C-alpha cells in the first residue's frame, strides 16, 4: 500500500499524523492522558485479552535501550501482537538508508504500528507525517519520551491521590533530558508544582519557559525541602567534560543522598527513569530505600505501554 504520496509529492508539508500516534506529551489533552491511565489499570500482562492478535508491531531502535524496548515488546506480545525488532546496527540503516525510506519499508512489510527511538529530536514526527499508520515515540533526542512520562505519572498515582498541587522536584541534567521535558509537560497539565534543580550547565534559565510556574533552584537541599516526589535524572559523565563543573563538584552538590532525601516529605516518592548510575546522581542507599519506586516504575511500564499500543491500534474498548 502506498504510504502517503512519497517524498516528492509530500515535501511541502507533512501529512496528517495517523490517529493513535503518540509523539509527545505536549500536544496531548489531559483527558487523553487520564484515558490511557484508566486503560492501563485494566491491563494485566499475565492474563491479557489478545486485543492485538494478528497485529504487527515494529520496534525501530536507533539508540540503545533496555527498559523501553523490552517493555514495549512484552506489552505488545502480551496483547497477542507479533513484534519485530530493528536495530540501526545490522540493518540497512547502516548502509545509509534514510529515515523515511526505512519507514516506507517497514510499512510495506506490513507494520501496523511503529515504535521508534531515535537520537534526533523530531524524528518520530517526521515518520508519522509520511505514514498512514500510528507512530509511537519511544524517545527522540532531547525532545520527548512520552511513554516514560505516562508510566511515571501512573506510578505516582498508585501512591498519591492526585497530581494536582503535588510538589515535584526534578534534579539533574534537565537540559539533555527528554524524560524531563515530557514529565514537565505532563505534570504541569495536571497542576503539579514543579521545581527543577541542577547546575546551569544542565539547567539553563530557558528551562523555566517550558511550562507556566516552573521554579528553578540551584541548591538541592532547598529544592527537595518538603517535596512529595523527588525525581532524579541520570548524569552522563561525558557531558560534564568541558563545563565548569567537575564530576566531584556535581556529586558533592547535587547527588541524592539519604540526608538530602530526608528533607522531602516523610512519604515522598523517590523516582528515577533509569538507567541509574549508583554513586553518581544518587547513592546506593537512596536507590534501594523504602521510598524508592524505581523498580515499580519499570514494572508499570508494561501495562502503560499495553494501553498505548491498544489505543494506537484502536483496540481500547
Amino acid at each position, binding site marked *: 500500500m502506498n504510504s502517503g504520496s512519497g517524498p516528492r509529492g509530500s*515535501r*511541502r508539508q507533512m501529512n496528517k499524523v495517523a490517529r493513535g500516534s503518540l509523539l509527545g506529551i*505536549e500536544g496531548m489533552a489531559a483527558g487523553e492522558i487520564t484515558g490511557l491511565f484508566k486503560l492501563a489499570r485494566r491491563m494485566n500482562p499475565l492474563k491479557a485479552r489478545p486485543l492485538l492478535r494478528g497485529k504487527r508491531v515494529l520496534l525501530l531502535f536507533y539508540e540503545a535501550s533496555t527498559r523501553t524496548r523490552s517493555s514495549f515488546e512484552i506489552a505488545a506480545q502480551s496483547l497477542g501482537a507479533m513484534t519485530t525488532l530493528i536495530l540501526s546496527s545490522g540493518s540497512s540503516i547502516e548502509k545509509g538508508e534514510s529515515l523515511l525510506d526505512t519507514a516506507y519499508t517497514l510499512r510495506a512489510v506490513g507494520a501496523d504500528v511503529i515504535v521508534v527511538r531515535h537520537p534526533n*529530536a*523530531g524524528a518520530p514526527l517526521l515518520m508519522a507525517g509520511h505514514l498512514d499508520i500510528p507512530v509511537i515515540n519511544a524517545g527522540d533526542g*532531547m525532545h520527548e519520551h512520552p511513554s516514560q512520562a505516562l508510566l511515571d505519572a501512573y506510578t505516582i498515582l498508585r501512591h498519591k491521590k492526585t497530581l494536582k498541587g503535588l510538589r515535584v522536584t526534578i534534579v539533574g541534567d534537565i537540559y539533555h533530558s527528554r524524560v524531563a*521535558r515530557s514529565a514537565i509537560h505532563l505534570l504541569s497539565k495536571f497542576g503539579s508544582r514543579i521545581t527543577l534543580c541542577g547546575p546551569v550547565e544542565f539547567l539553563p534559565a530557558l528551562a523555566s*519557559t517550558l511550562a507556566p510556574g516552573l521554579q528553578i533552584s540551584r541548591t538541592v537541599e532547598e529544592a527537595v525541602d518538603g517535596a512529595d516526589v523527588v525525581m532524579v535524572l541520570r548524569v552522563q559523565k561525558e557531558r560534564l567534560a568541558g563545563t565548569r563543573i567537575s564530576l566531584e563538584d556535581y556529586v558533592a552538590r547535587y547527588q541524592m543522598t539519604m540526608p538530602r532525601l530526608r528533607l522531602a516529605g516523610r512519604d515522598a516518592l523517590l523516582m528515577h527513569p533509569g538507567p541509574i548510575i549508583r554513586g553518581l546522581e544518587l547513592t546506593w542507599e537512596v536507590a534501594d530505600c523504602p521510598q524508592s519506586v524505581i523498580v515499580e516504575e519499570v514494572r508499570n511500564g508494561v501495562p502503560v505501554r499495553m494501553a498505548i499500543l491498544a489505543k494506537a491500534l484502536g483496540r481500547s474498548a
Partner: protein
Amino acid sequence: MSQRRIQGLLIRGGHLIDPAADIDAPMDILLRDGRVAEISAPNQIRGSAEEKFDAKGLIVAPGFIDLHIHLREPGQSYKETIATGTSAAAAGGFTSVCCMPNTHPAVDSPEWVTWMQQPDRGAVVNVFPIAAATQASKGAVLTDFRALQRAGAVAVTDDGKPILSDAIMRDTLRVGAEINLPVIQHAEDTRATEGCSMNESPTSFRLGLRGMAASAEASIVERDIRLAQQFNGARLHVAHTSTAAALEAVRLGKRNKVRVTCEVTPHHFTLTDADVRNYNANFKMNPPLRSAADREAVLRALADGTIDAIATDHAPHALHEKMIEFEEAAFGITGLETALSLAITHLHRERKISLAKIVELFTSGPARVLDLNGRGTLACGGPADVTIFDPRKKWTYQACKGQSKSYNTPFDGWQFTGKIVATIVGGQIVHRAG
C-alpha cells in the same frame, strides 16, 4: 530569453524609482545597444525603438543586485548551476548576483574566478564572483587578493567558515584595505555553536534542539569592527546580520566612521524562531531564524539606514538533504524568487517602509557595498539593467514552478503582494512574467 537580440527597447508609461538619482516619478526609458540611451518625462523620448514595453501601472527600477547567493558551481551542480541559479535570479528581478566561494573546490584562485564568468556557464544575469579569503577557506593562509581582484572578484570571504583567528582576520582586512577590496564575514563564533541547529530560545529548548546564542554572532561582528578600525581604508561587510546586538554593533561602527556595511535576508525580516514548528528543515538556515525582538531590531534597522542591502543568501539544497531529521539536514533555503514579494508584503504593506526605500535596498545600497560601478542606478550611458514590477499584484508562490533547481523554501504556497513583471539585463529581456 528572447530569440533575437533587441537593439532598442522603449519602456513607457511606468513609474521610475531610482533612489541613487533621486527619481520617484513617471518616466519613460529608452535602452539601446545594452546601454541606457534616454530617460524622459512620459512621451518625451526623442529616439525611436523597434520594441516597446508597456509599463503602465508598474514600477520601473534599476536592476536589482543580490550580494549573497550560492550558485553551487563548481562541484555541486545537483543543487544548482550557474545557469539555473541565474534563471532564478532573473525570475526574482535580479540583474546582478554576487556568488559565494564555498563551492567544491572553493573559488580561491584567479582561474576559478575566471571560470565562473565564462559564457559557457550559461549565466542569464551578471555574475560577480566573490573569492575565498583563505586557501580552500581553511582560515589559515590568505589567497592572492590582487590576482583575484584582477580576475574579477568583487570581495573576499570565507562564508560558511567564519574567520575566527584575530591574526588572519587582521591580515585579511589589512590586505583588503591596500587594494580597496571589501571583506565579507559570516559572523558566527563556530566554537560556540557546534551541534546547534536553530536559535537558542524557548522554542529550541522545547523542541530539544541545541541553540545558537545571539552572542555568537555579535561577538564576531564587534571583534571585526574593532579590527577594521585599525586599518585606514579597510572595508568590512557583515553578511546576513540577524541579531539586535550585531545590528547595534554595526550602527555604532558606522557612527564611529568605520567602513562597515551589512545586509539582511528576507527570511530574517519575515520569520522568527517560533516558526520552526514540526521540525521542518525548510526553516533551518544559518544564521538561524531569531527571536521576535531580533526581528523587530532588523525591521528598525531597515528603516533607519543601518542596513545597506537586502540579500537573499539563496542556498539551494536537494530534497535528500532536507527531507531528513532536522538536526542532520543542511542549512539554507532558496530565496531569489521570493525576495521582492516578501519585501513588499512584509516591509511595505505591513510596516509602511516606502517602495523607494525597498528599491534602494535592492539597488544602490548593494551597489555601494561592493562598488559595482554603474549598477544599481539608471544613468544615461550606463548598463541597461532594469527591473520592472507590479507592487499590487497578488499571487501565490509555488516553489516547484520556480527556476531554481531546488525548492527548499519555507514560503511554498504563501500568498504575496507584489510581483516581478520583467527583468532586463544589458537591454535584453531575460525574464517576463507569464
